[in-house]
């Protein structure tokens, strides 16, 4: 059973800001997008994670200093033919995690294509992170750390190698994104319609490892 650190409720309405961000996960099928989200949101890992159809929606809350950050996460389907749906998910997203599998060179190529598409079509301020997942399978590595890091630097992306299986860097990458997102009152949420009407209720319990 994964160890759980429950996420603290923001104390009352007055103190501390609450920000809400939309985040989308993109990447080839089976690189581990759903697994990363499952690890982040529920602290679990399934050897056989069901393939995602369309997209799945989850939320998780983390605390950064005096700010509560609520992520609304779209975990998308990886297969190419679902591509036409992707813009709906990244449109209006403030952050994206583009995932590849370090044991599969093709998935890194696909990740680069996603990054390009985001740079062209997504909101210009979108925070993009690159995740080289399945880092626990280092003996099957096909994508070198340095190669990905150089690419990430050239494109101003956050970059980490992660493992949904061992939990390595999973919370960290979400926290790094949370840190990078603008948290001033008026820029925090994407759609004005939503405003800042987040009630400080029911933060999903999870291992997000904040407020420690």
């Amino acid at each position, binding site marked *: 059973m994964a160890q759980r650190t429950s996420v603290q409720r923001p104390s009352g309405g007055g103190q501390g800001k609450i920000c809400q961000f939309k985040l989308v996960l993109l990447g080839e*099928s*089976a690189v581990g997008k759903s697994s990363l989200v499952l690890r982040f949101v529920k602290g679990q890992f*399934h050897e*056989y*994670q*069901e*393939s*995602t*159809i*369309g*997209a799945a*929606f989850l*939320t998780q809350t983390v605390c950064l200093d005096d700010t509560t950050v609520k992520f*609304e996460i*779209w975990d998308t*389907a990886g*297969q*190419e*033919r*679902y591509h*036409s*749906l992707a813009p*709906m*998910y990244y449109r*209006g997203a403030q952050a994206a995690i583009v995932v590849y599998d370090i044991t599969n060179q093709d998935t890194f190529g696909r990740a680069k294509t996603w990054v390009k598409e985001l740079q062209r079509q997504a909101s210009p301020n979108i925070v993009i992170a690159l995740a080289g997942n399945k880092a626990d399978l280092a003996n099957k590595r096909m994508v070198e750390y340095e190669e990905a890091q150089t690419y990430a630097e050239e494109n101003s992306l956050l970059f980490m190698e992660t493992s949904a299986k061992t939990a390595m860097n999973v919370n960290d990458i979400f926290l790094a994104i949370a840190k990078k997102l603008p948290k001033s009152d008026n820029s925090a949420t994407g*759609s004005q*319609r*939503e405003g800042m*009407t*987040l009630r400080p209720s029911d933060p999903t319990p999870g291992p997000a490892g904040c407020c420690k």
Partner: protein
Amino acid sequence: MADRRAAGEEGGDGGTNSSTTSQSRLSDVDEYGFQRPPDFDYATYEEFMSRYLTVLARRARKWAHLLGARETVGRGVKLKRYVRKGIPMKHRGKMWLEVSGARQQMSLRPGYYRAMLAGAPLGEEVQEAIRVDLPRTFPDNIHFRQVTQDAQVTQGKLVSLNNVLSAFCRHNAGIGYCQGLNYIAGLLLLVTNDEESSFWLLCVLTDSLLPDYYTSTMVGVLTDTRVMEALVKERCPLVWRHVEHYGLTWDLLVTKWFVCLFAEVLPIETVLRIWDCLFYEGNKVLMRVALALVVTNEAEILKAQDFGDIVKCFKKITQDANAIDCHSFMETVFKVSGSFPRARLAKLRDSCMEQVLAESKK
């Protein structure tokens, strides 16, 4: 309640283990092999089952009488009524083949499935896509558990699933493998328990019942979510406005409903009842179900007060007590969706597809 859950969990993971709990007569694995989740609502389900068993017994008698010694039945108002009230599990696989026309195709081309199985190797990409999805299909079903030897899947439904999907890709290279077909083929295998039957049912689905759903652009799915939106706008304008207001689109909410034909969306028993009608009456029933889900849950949806709440609500309404009670659910589906002229639907589809195609060219 909590006790039951704990007991349910204990029996977990064993696979073949179907121990019952002291308070619930129900096993933690359902009759199709699906592991009930730890938070499974045994109380609601048992309450429903106690009523549904009577229905099932009555339907079994009626069907036995209808079929007599025959294997086939003629189409007609009576059969339609019977199908809408549910095909007994005992006859389900055979009847699906019968009423969908799959049996006819199968008998016209004996040996075809074998030939497709033994055909030329598939392209590497397709093969890989299937291979990756096999263990990710119904991992919560005991029949779909991996039995591997030297990294080769050696027995059980996963072998059959691999066979059916590979044969299908050879038969219909234009479609190839589309994620979602794994769940559909998997469910067909659970019901028919036969690869060849599952193959031909899959062919009927993709060739005639749902043309354009699983093609490389999935234009059929994109079209039908739009058709659904148009129908919701017409019949449930408040919900339509609500969804619009929070910046959601219908594709985000219901793509999986259509891609999976409600498999992995609604409870299994309910899905099978929908598929009974799908194979007999055609794809219109999918639209009826989708619409009924929205109409009957209007108040619930309108209560959701932000983007995330609405998405979660659309998930909840597919799993609540109403969705579990498949018999009442299907009655409601036909009552709520009412008269639904085929011509009207066809026209709506044409105009929606035109929009989709126009937008994809941009």
